[in-house]
C-alpha cells in the first residue's frame, strides 16, 4: 500500500471517528424512549391515529391517555408537548398521566401532542438533546425537542405559510408549528393532519374544555397568562382570580385575538363546541439574550443575561437570581389545570370532571417534579408505556 493510500485511509478514519459518534447521538436522540408509568386512574391508552387514519403510525401519531371516572360527566383534554422545547407543559401532563384519578367525567391527557417535534432540537442553537429530572429513586430522562416538527418528517417549507382555512400569511417555518396549523386538514402537511386528527378527537369525544400547556420567553408579552377563546373568558377569569388569590402565584388572562389564526385557543373554539384555553408559564431558556443553552439553564431557569435584560426593562415578566425553576413552572401548570377542572365543574355541574391525586403548585415546588414520577423498573410492565 502506498503512502498516499495510507494517508487517505487515516484521514477517512478520522472523519469516521467524528461522524459515527455524531450519527449515533442523532439516532439515539430521535428514538429515545421516555417511560410513562400509568396512574391507576388511566383506564385506556389510545392513539391519535384511531381518530384519523392519515396520521396512524406516522411521526404525527401520539398516545392518548384516557382517565374515565365512574360517574358520568364532561370531558377535558389536556395537551402537553405542542411545543416540546417548553418542557413544563409536557412534565405537567406527565404528572397527570402518572398520578391522576378521575371520579367523574373523562380526562384525556396528551404528553407529546407534536411527537415529531420531540425528536429534533433546534438546528444551530446548541440545544441539549435531553434533560434529566431527579427523583427519589434515580433520574428520569426526557427528550429536549423543538418548537417545530422534525424536517425529516415534513419538508420542504414554503416561502410563506398560508394558513388553512383562513388563508392568513404566517412565517414559513410555522408550517411545522402545531400551534399555527389548527384546525388542520385531512390532505395537508403532517402537522396539519395531526391538528385535524385532534379536532376529530375533540368532536368524537365531545370534549368540553381543551387546555394547551406552553411556556414563553420573558421578552414575549403573552406570558404568565391564560389565553382564552371568547367562550372561555369567564372560565379563564375565574381560574386566574382563584389561582392568584389562593395559590401564591400570579396568572393573568388574555383574550384570543379573532384575527390571529392557527392557534389552539382560537381555532378549537371556532371549529368545535369545546372551550379552548392556553396556559403560558415563564421560561428564560427561550429568551434570545440568554447565555449558554444548557440543560441546567433549561431546568433552573437561571440566566444572568436574561436578568440583565430585566434590569434594562426589556422583559414582560420579572426575574432575579433565583430564576424560574422547572418545579415552579410545572406547579403553575398542574394547579392551573386542576383549578380549570374545579371551576368548570362548578359552572357546568352536568359536564363536570372531578380529578384527584395530582400535586398542586405548592406541593410541586416543595417536593420537586421528580417526587411525583414513578420508577418504571418497579412498576408492572403492562402499566409502563413509552412516548
Amino acid at each position: 500500500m502506498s503512502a498516499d493510500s495510507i494517508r487517505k485511509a487515516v484521514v477517512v478514519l478520522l472523519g469516521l471517528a467524528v461522524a459515527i459518534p455524531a450519527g449515533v447521538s442523532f439516532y439515539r436522540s430521535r428514538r429515545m424512549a421516555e417511560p410513562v408509568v400509568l396512574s391507576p386512574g388511566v383506564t385506556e391508552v389510545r392513539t391519535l391515529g384511531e381518530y384519523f387514519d392519515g396520521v396512524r403510525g406516522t411521526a404525527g401519531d401520539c398516545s392518548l391517555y384516557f382517565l374515565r371516572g365512574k360517574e358520568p360527566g364532561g370531558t377535558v383534554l389536556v395537551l402537553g408537548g405542542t411545543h416540546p422545547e417548553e418542557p413544563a407543559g409536557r412534565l405537567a401532563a406527565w404528572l397527570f398521566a402518572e398520578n391522576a384519578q378521575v371520579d367523574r367525567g373523562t380526562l384525556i391527557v396528551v404528553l407529546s401532542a407534536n411527537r415529531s417535534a420531540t425528536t429534533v432540537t433546534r438546528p444551530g442553537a446548541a440545544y441539549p438533546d435531553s434533560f434529566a429530572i431527579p427523583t427519589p429513586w434515580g433520574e428520569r430522562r426526557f427528550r429536549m425537542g423543538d418548537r417545530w416538527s422534525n424536517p425529516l418528517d415534513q419538508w420542504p417549507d414554503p416561502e410563506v405559510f398560508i394558513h388553512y382555512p383562513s388563508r392568513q400569511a404566517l412565517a414559513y417555518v410555522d408550517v411545522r408549528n402545531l400551534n399555527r396549523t389548527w384546525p388542520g386538514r385531512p390532505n395537508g402537511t403532517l402537522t396539519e393532519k395531526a391538528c385535524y386528527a385532534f379536532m376529530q378527537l375533540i368532536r368524537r369525544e365531545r370534549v368540553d374544555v381543551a387546555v394547551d400547556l406552553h411556556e414563553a420567553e420573558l421578552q414575549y408579552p403573552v406570558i404568565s397568562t391564560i389565553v382564552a377563546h371568547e367562550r372561555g373568558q369567564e372560565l379563564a377569569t375565574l381560574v386566574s382570580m382563584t389561582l392568584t388569590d389562593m395559590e401564591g402565584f400570579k396568572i393573568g388572562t388574555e383574550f384570543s385575538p379573532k384575527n390571529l389564526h392557527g392557534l389552539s385557543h382560537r381555532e378549537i373554539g371556532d371549529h368545535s363546541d369545546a372551550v379552548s384555553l392556553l396556559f403560558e408559564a415563564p421560561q428564560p431558556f427561550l429568551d434570545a439574550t440568554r447565555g449558554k443553552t444548557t440543560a441546567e439553564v433549561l431546568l433552573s431557569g437561571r440566566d444572568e443575561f436574561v436578568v440583565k435584560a430585566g434590569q434594562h426593562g426589556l422583559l414582560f415578566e420579572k426575574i432575579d437570581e433565583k430564576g424560574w425553576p422547572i418545579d415552579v413552572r410545572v406547579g403553575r401548570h398542574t394547579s392551573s389545570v386542576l383549578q380549570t377542572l374545579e371551576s368548570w365543574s362548578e359552572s357546568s355541574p352536568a359536564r363536570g370532571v372531578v380529578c384527584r391525586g395530582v400535586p398542586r403548585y405548592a406541593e410541586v415546588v416543595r417536593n420537586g417534579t421528580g417526587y411525583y414520577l414513578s420508577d418504571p423498573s418497579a412498576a408492572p410492565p403492562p402499566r409502563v408505556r413509552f412516548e
Partner: protein
Amino acid sequence: MLEFLIAACYYAFVAWIVVLMVHNLVKSRSWEREILYVIVLLPFVLRLLRLK
C-alpha cells in the same frame, strides 16, 4: 406529491455532492485538501442517512 418530488431531488443532489467529494478525495495529493473534503463530507453523509 410535489413535496415528495422536491425532497427526492434534494436527496439526489446531496448524493451527487457526496460522489463529487469522494472523487476529489481520491484524486487529491495534498493532506490539507483531504481533511477539508472529509470535513465537508460529514454533514452530507449524515443527511443522506437521515441522521439529523
